[in-house]
């Protein structure tokens, strides 16, 4: 099997055995062609590497797209060189269709403060192009766009903090069948809230049942995403595996139910590095995972494991 084969077939993976076969080939390829990964030597490369260096298996000038992370607190931004835009598109559309169906949908994206170079903006453009009806759109400001009664079902994406602000306004009721997909960002201007509280507040603010508030897990450094369909548990697509590792020893995988750092293997990251150690704290739940928040160096120094895990 060649890397080119994997590039065209990774979305067709159906079994863990197949995943493992692909992963073995990809890891060897990336060790050989990505200098940073080769020198690092461990399995999961910290995602912050995308801030400090070019994580690539090819000359960056050959990239068809470059995703930049949002700038927070003046810190460096991650830079993800995407060798082939078609790989990203295949990953985004295959997962969306398997989770939501073929559509068409009315897709709204409320992403204030997001730059054009963000992967989330790109993702929304792809989804609107493939699955969006006429009334699909990006919008800003404090008012919801109009939607006609005969419009296809609404799927409304937005960053958590932006959606909360929007929900606080009057007249933000959505059609009964609408689904909200929050894309993370739990810190509000007021205080940190749990995902459950967030979903309850969004459901109340937008006038829909709480099980229609879904979540998406994605980041600039990953070309694949995972969705939580009306609960706390995210399910990755068959070409993405999420493990939980000990933050103090990321080589050590933790069993289901134990809190640790999320370590992702994303085969869509074929031409960069697939095995990435995120800064997100989470728990493995069956075939899925739960995201508990951001784990920083500070949190490790302090008392993150305050509530002892069983």
């Amino acid at each position: 099997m060649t890397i080119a084969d994997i590039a065209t077939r990774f979305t067709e993976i159906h079994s863990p055995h197949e995943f493992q076969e692909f992963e073995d080939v990809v890891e060897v390829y990336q060790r050989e062609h990505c200098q940073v990964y080769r020198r690092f030597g461990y399995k999961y490369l910290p995602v912050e590497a995308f801030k400090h260096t070019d994580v690539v298996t090819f000359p960056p000038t050959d990239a068809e797209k470059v995703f930049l992370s949002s700038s927070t607190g003046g810190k460096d931004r991650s830079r993800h060189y995407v060798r082939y835009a078609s790989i990203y598109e295949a990953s985004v559309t295959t997962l969306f269709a398997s989770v939501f169906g073929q559509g068409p949908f009315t897709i709204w994206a409320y992403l204030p403060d997001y730059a054009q170079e963000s992967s989330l903006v790109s993702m929304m453009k792809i989804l609107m192009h493939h699955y969006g009806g006429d009334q699909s759109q990006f919008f800003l400001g404090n008012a919801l766009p109009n939607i006609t009664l005969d419009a296809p079902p609404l799927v409304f994406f937005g960053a958590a903090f932006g959606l909360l602000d929007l929900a606080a306004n009057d007249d933000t009721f959505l059609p009964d069948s609408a689904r909200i997909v929050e894309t993370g960002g739990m810190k509000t201007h007021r205080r940190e809230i749990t995902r459950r509280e967030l979903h309850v507040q969004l459901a109340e603010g937008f006038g829909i049942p709480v099980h229609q508030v879904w979540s998406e897990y994605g980041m600039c450094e990953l070309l694949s995403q995972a969705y939580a369909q009306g609960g706390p548990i995210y399910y990755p697509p068959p070409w993405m595996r999420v493990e939980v590792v000990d933050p103090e020893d990321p080589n050590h995988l933790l069993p289901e139910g134990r809190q640790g750092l999320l370590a992702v293997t994303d085969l869509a990251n074929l031409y960069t590095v697939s095995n990435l150690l995120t800064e997100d704290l989470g728990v493995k739940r069956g075939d899925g995972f739960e995201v508990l928040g951001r784990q920083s160096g500070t949190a490790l120094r302090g008392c993150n494991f305050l509530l002892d895990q069983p």
Partner: protein
Amino acid sequence: MKSLASAISDAAQLWCEPPLHSYRNDSVQSTLDAPNSFTAEAIAFAIDQQMSQMSESALTNWLAGRMPIRKQQVGVINAGNIPLVGLQDLLAVLLCGHTYIGVLSSKSSYFLPAFCETVREVGGKFDARFVGIEEIWEDAEMVIATGSDATIAQIQSLSLDYGLDPSKCLFRKNRYSLAILDGQETEDHLSELALDVLLHEGMGCRSVALIFAPSDLEPDRFLDHLAKMRGYFPAHPSTSGKLALQQAYLSATDQSHAYGDGLEFLISKGAAEPQVPGHVRWVEYDHLDEIVPIVNDFLADVQCMVARKYVRNKLPEIWDIQRFGSTQRPPLDWKPDGVDTIDFLCGF
């Protein structure tokens, strides 16, 4: 009848003056056997430092005549990241006359119960018990808890579910400490700074995680002091394993760094971002004035700052910068996150 302050003081004396009390020795041994990164040397330092300042007069002065209007049940969810981390809260609750309901961490579950037993043995009378977390929500009227943003969000949510008044909850979030150098530090200053950085393997909000230094100052002298400090406070056997991945990462991404023999410590140059415990960040500046807006940006996350006196006088007074070495020697009356625990406990 003996006052509680007097009994606590007597118990503290038994714990820090030879022959050391068996409760101390037994709890030290059990703690060393527990799943944590504590070393015998660091535990001894922490116990001696805290017990030696618990005289009856110091305890009475700390209380300063403050007492609550009525006795309440105070739940304390203890962090376990450094030895004896919950002692101050325990003393504060007991001296205020409240009932203490403590949840212990599996990393450090022996010291507080053992010290309570010692206080009882010398005649101290108080209400304290150690429980599972569920009992806190059932019984506590006030709560003190420390944790990460995510953990505190969970606890806040639970406390609301159980109808606890938010104003009666004292939540402390994760913090870290920093040092500011100007290049004129003496050998003693740097030795004390090595203690600020290395003790407890860099764990705890008072340990120094960032060192601001002039761009023309190389860390070589400080590295010597880090190595020397490891002679007094050897690294926990797990430290090198934890730092190995960090070091490999810095090396792979060409970030300037240095480390001690056997990876007993790790220091890297870069942006003012705290790293994992045991890995200290050296942040360069050209002029001292530059660091004021940088530090002001994350001031809410900073627990302590240390610098030599000359530098202290050049920086904002409100920063309350202390001398080198002070981070690992918290005074009895120190205020975590700037909040006076006794005031909180007497406010209702």
